[in-house]
C-alpha cells in the first residue's frame, strides 16, 4: 500500500502532465497498432499478388490424344498445392472455349478433321499463387514444349503497394521512437519526484529492487492509462478507419480485418509494459 502511494506521487503533484502523457501515449499506441495491422495484412496480400499468375504449358503436338490429362497430373504432383488450379485442355476443350467468342473459326477448325488437330494448341493451364520456381518445374515436365506466363501482370500496382509498406514501416518506427522518448522523459521527470523518498529508503537499507518499484509502478500507471484509452480509441475509431481504407483499393477490401478487434487488449498490454519498462529505465542508475 505504501509503495502504491509512493508510486502515485507524480499523479498527485502533476496530474495534468501524467494525464496528457497518457493521452499522447494512447494515440501513439493506436496509430502504431494501425500501422502494424496494416503491415501484417498488406504484406501477405502483396506477396500473393506478386506470385499470382497463370501458366499456359503447351503440349508436344505429336503426343497422343488425352496426353494433356496425364501431363496435368504430373504437374499437380510436381507443384503439390491443392490451391493451384491445374487443368488439361485438349482439342475438344479448346474448341469449346473458342466457340462462344469465335464460332466461325471454331467450325472451320473442326471441319478440317484430322488435319485440324495439328492447328489446335493443346495445353495445360496452371493458375493460382505459384511457387517462385513453378515455371521451371512445369517446363521440366515431359511432353511440354513451351510456356506462356502472365507473371508481372500486377507489377505497377505491386510497386505502389510495396512503397506504401515501406512508408508504413518507417512511420511505425518513428511512432515507436516518439512513444519511448516521451515515456522515458516522463519517467525521468517522475524519478525526480521520487528522488527524496528513494534516497531515504536507500539509507534505511532498502534493496535496489525495492527502490525500483515505485518509479516502475509510476510508469506502469501512465502506461496502463494510455493503453486502456488506446483500447477504447481502437475499438471505436478502428472500424471507420478501415471502412475508409477499403474504399481506396480492391486490394484493401480483401484484407482480413475481422480479427483486428483483438488488437485492443494488445494495445493495453503494450502500454502497460512500455510504461513499466521506461519508468524502470529512468531510475536504473539512480536506484543502483
Amino acid at each position: 500500500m505504501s509503495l502504491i502511494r509512493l508510486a502515485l506521487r507524480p499523479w498527485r503533484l502533476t496530474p495534468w502532465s501524467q494525464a496528457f502523457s497518457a493521452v499522447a501515449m494512447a494515440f501513439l499506441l493506436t496509430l502504431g497498432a494501425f500501422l502494424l495491422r496494416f503491415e501484417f495484412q498488406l504484406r501477405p496480400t502483396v506477396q500473393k499478388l506478386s506470385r499470382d499468375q497463370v501458366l499456359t504449358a503447351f503440349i508436344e503436338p505429336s503426343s497422343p490424344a488425352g496426353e494433356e490429362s496425364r501431363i496435368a497430373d504430373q504437374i499437380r504432383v510436381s507443384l503439390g498445392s491443392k490451391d493451384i488450379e491445374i487443368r488439361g485442355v485438349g482439342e475438344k476443350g479448346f474448341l469449346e472455349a473458342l466457340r462462344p467468342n469465335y464460332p466461325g473459326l471454331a467450325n472451320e477448325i473442326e471441319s478440317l478433321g484430322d488435319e485440324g488437330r495439328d492447328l489446335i494448341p493443346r495445353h495445360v493451364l496452371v493458375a493460382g499463387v505459384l511457387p517462385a520456381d513453378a515455371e521451371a518445374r512445369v517446363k521440366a515436365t515431359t511432353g511440354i514444349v513451351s510456356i506462356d506466363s502472365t507473371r508481372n501482370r500486377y507489377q505497377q500496382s505491386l510497386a505502389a503497394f510495396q512503397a506504401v509498406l515501406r512508408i508504413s514501416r518507417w512511420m511505425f518506427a518513428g511512432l515507436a521512437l516518439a512513444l519511448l522518448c516521451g515515456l522515458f522523459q516522463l519517467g525521468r521527470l517522475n524519478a525526480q519526484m521520487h528522488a527524496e523518498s528513494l534516497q531515504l529508503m536507500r539509507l534505511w537499507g532498502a534493496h535496489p529492487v525495492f527502490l525500483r518499484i515505485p518509479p516502475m509502478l509510476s510508469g506502469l500507471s501512465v502506461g496502463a492509462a494510455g493503453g486502456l484509452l488506446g483500447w477504447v480509441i481502437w475499438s471505436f475509431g478502428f472500424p471507420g478507419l478501415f471502412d475508409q481504407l477499403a474504399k481506396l483499393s480492391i486490394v484493401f477490401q480483401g484484407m482480413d480485418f475481422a480479427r483486428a478487434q483483438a488488437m485492443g487488449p494488445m494495445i493495453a498490454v503494450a502500454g502497460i509494459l512500455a510504461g513499466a519498462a521506461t519508468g524502470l529505465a529512468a531510475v536504473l542508475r539512480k536506484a543502483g
Partner: protein
Amino acid sequence: MPGAEVRAAGPFSRKEKIGQMLHLSAVSKSYLGQPRVLEAVDLQLKRGDFLYVIGGSGAGKSTLLRLLATEESPTSGHLSLFGYRLDQVSPTTLRSIRRSIGYVPQNLRLIPDLSVQENVALSLSLAGKKSFSGESRLHVAHTLDRMGVGHLKDKPASELSGGEAQRVAIARALVRQPEILIADEPTGAQDPEYIWTLMDVIAKANLQGMTTILATHDREIVRRFRKPCAVLKGGRVLLEGRSPQVCL
C-alpha cells in the same frame, strides 16, 4: 512491552563482541570548490556509548552525522561501523549496516505521501520486519504512543507541524530498534514539555545498549543528561570529554 520482541536485523554480533561499534580515523570531508567541512576527525565509540556532538553553526555537526549515517562518504580517512570499513564493504553488507542504523536527519525527510503510521512502518519493514504482521503493527503503535504522536497515526506526514514531524522522525528511527541512533538536532522544534519526554525515551534506549550520537545546540539538554561530548569548531574536534568544562 510489545516492542521488546521486535529486533532489527543485525548480523554483526561477532564484531560487536570485539567492542568497536564506530571508529573514525582522520576523517575529512570537503565539497567541490569549497573549504574542508571536516578536518581529520578521530572518534571511537563502543556499544552502548552516548555522545553529544556540539558546535556552532557551520561547525560540521550535520556533515559528521551524515557520514556516520552512511549518507555520504569521507573525502579522506577511514570510517568503520560494526568493525567494517565502509569504503571496503560490499553493497550487501552496506545494506545490512544501514538496517542497523536509526537516523534522524536535521530536515527530517518524512515521506509526505504516506501517513505517520506508514512512514514508521516502512522504516520497520526495511529493517527486515514485515510491517503488516500483527506484532509489528503493535510495535509501531507503541512507538508512536511513546513519542506522543499515536493519535496522529492516520494523518498524512505533509500535514504535521514541525514538532510533530520531529517526533515522528524519531519514532521512525527508534521503531527499528537500531544498534546506533544518529540524531541531528532531534528536539530543535519541540515544545519544552516534549523535549524531556523524547530525551527520556532516547536515554532509556541507550541504557538498553543502543549507541547514541546526538547533535544539539541545546545546553539545557546537555546539562540535564550528563554524557560525553565532542565539541566541533571549524570542522575539527576541539574538545572531547564529559566534564561540564568541556560540554557546557
